[in-house]
């Protein structure tokens, strides 16, 4: 266990190339159930926590497929590029809170939203957690996926188009549009990173001259 954890830490600091961690098998039934829920959701919302830090490209592309805002706070900041129009922080709540069925996901989602917004029958929660005990300790999810966020979301992105009410070819169309136009930096970068990650499971940082 100690060596596995050290590998994870090194992967986080230097990129994932050095990580030889064994990924748990993906629950295909849960993936399909999640895809159905999300594909039929009226107003899906993605809540990204710290566990999604290595799944930035996947979260961003999923958000595009669902046209879902991504809420991040504290440890989830940076999962989605704030220049992406789908990026939201809790302070933007008047624009994203309302009625209708939604899905939420992300490991270690910020506790504030669910505790403070409340839960009712119209809210369906899809969780992705590394810790198998986490779903039982949280408001009852309709679907619970256990494992690393990145491979789970990659599988979900593969399965989602068949169930996505926004169009079964949305994934291909979105990738094509991002490649063709590139006018949305966050989206184009997400597609490029996802593409490179499929061939090699590392996602090195790139230098940039932008400042804040």
């Amino acid at each position, binding site marked *: 266990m100690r060596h596995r954890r050290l590998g994870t830490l090194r992967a986080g*600091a230097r990129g994932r190339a050095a990580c030889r961690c064994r990924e748990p098998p993906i629950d295909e039934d849960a993936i399909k159930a999640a895809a159905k829920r999300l594909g039929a959701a009226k107003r899906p919302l993605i809540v990204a926590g710290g566990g999604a830090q290595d799944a930035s490209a996947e979260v961003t592309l999923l958000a595009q497929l669902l046209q879902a805002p991504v809420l991040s706070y504290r440890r989830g900041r940076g999962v989605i590029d704030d220049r992406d129009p789908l990026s939201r*922080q809790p302070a933007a*709540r008047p624009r994203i809170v309302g009625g209708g069925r939604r899905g939420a996901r992300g490991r270690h989602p910020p506790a504030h939203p669910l505790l403070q917004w409340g839960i009712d029958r*119209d809210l369906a929660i899809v969780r992705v957690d590394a810790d198998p005990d986490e779903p039982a300790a949280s408001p009852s999810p309709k679907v619970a996926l256990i494992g690393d966020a990145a491979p789970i979301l990659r599988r979900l992105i593969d399965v989602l188009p068949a169930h996505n009410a926004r169009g079964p070819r949305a994934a291909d169309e979105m990738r094509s549009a991002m490649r063709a136009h590139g006018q949305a930096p966050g989206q184009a970068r997400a597609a490029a990173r996802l593409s490179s990650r499929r061939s090699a499971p590392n996602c090195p940082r790139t230098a940039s001259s932008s400042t804040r």
Partner: protein
Amino acid sequence: LPEDGIFVDEVTQVGFVARLAFPVYKPRTFMSPGYQDNLGYGFATALGAQDARPDVPVLAISGDGGFLFTANEMATAMRHRIPLVTVVFNDGAFGNVRRIQEERYGNRLIASDLANPDFVAFAESFGAAADARPKPGRIAPGLRGAFARRDGPRLIEVPVGAMPSPWEFILMGRVRGG
């Protein structure tokens, strides 16, 4: 702070606002504690982040109370020449607690005021670089200059007064389930 620079927040007013308002462009460039919101974690955490990522600048922000939790680690920063830039917002108090005591407990203040050192003299006593009370317009240029220097830690003390509460933007209203 460059796009791939790392920001480390703290349990302090500017940190609370940063969680909502600071623009973040890449994963693992915004470090923040979990739900427990442990006061005092920031400076030491930022030293670790800067030592792990010497290729990018790291900025730590602290209140005066939070900084003092691990201020002695300035010795570590000097010993290993860790080029962390730290901004200490000095209001002479555990400001958030003090405001709560004022607003919710009839201004009955207890254990929320601080007896601070001279932070600039404190940093310089270790041999670290320090900026004393820059004017607001000089903070950003000072930070850019500090990020360019990679030869050791730097502390910037920013005196502040009581700040307005950010919590109305953080604590969200109930919209479901009655």
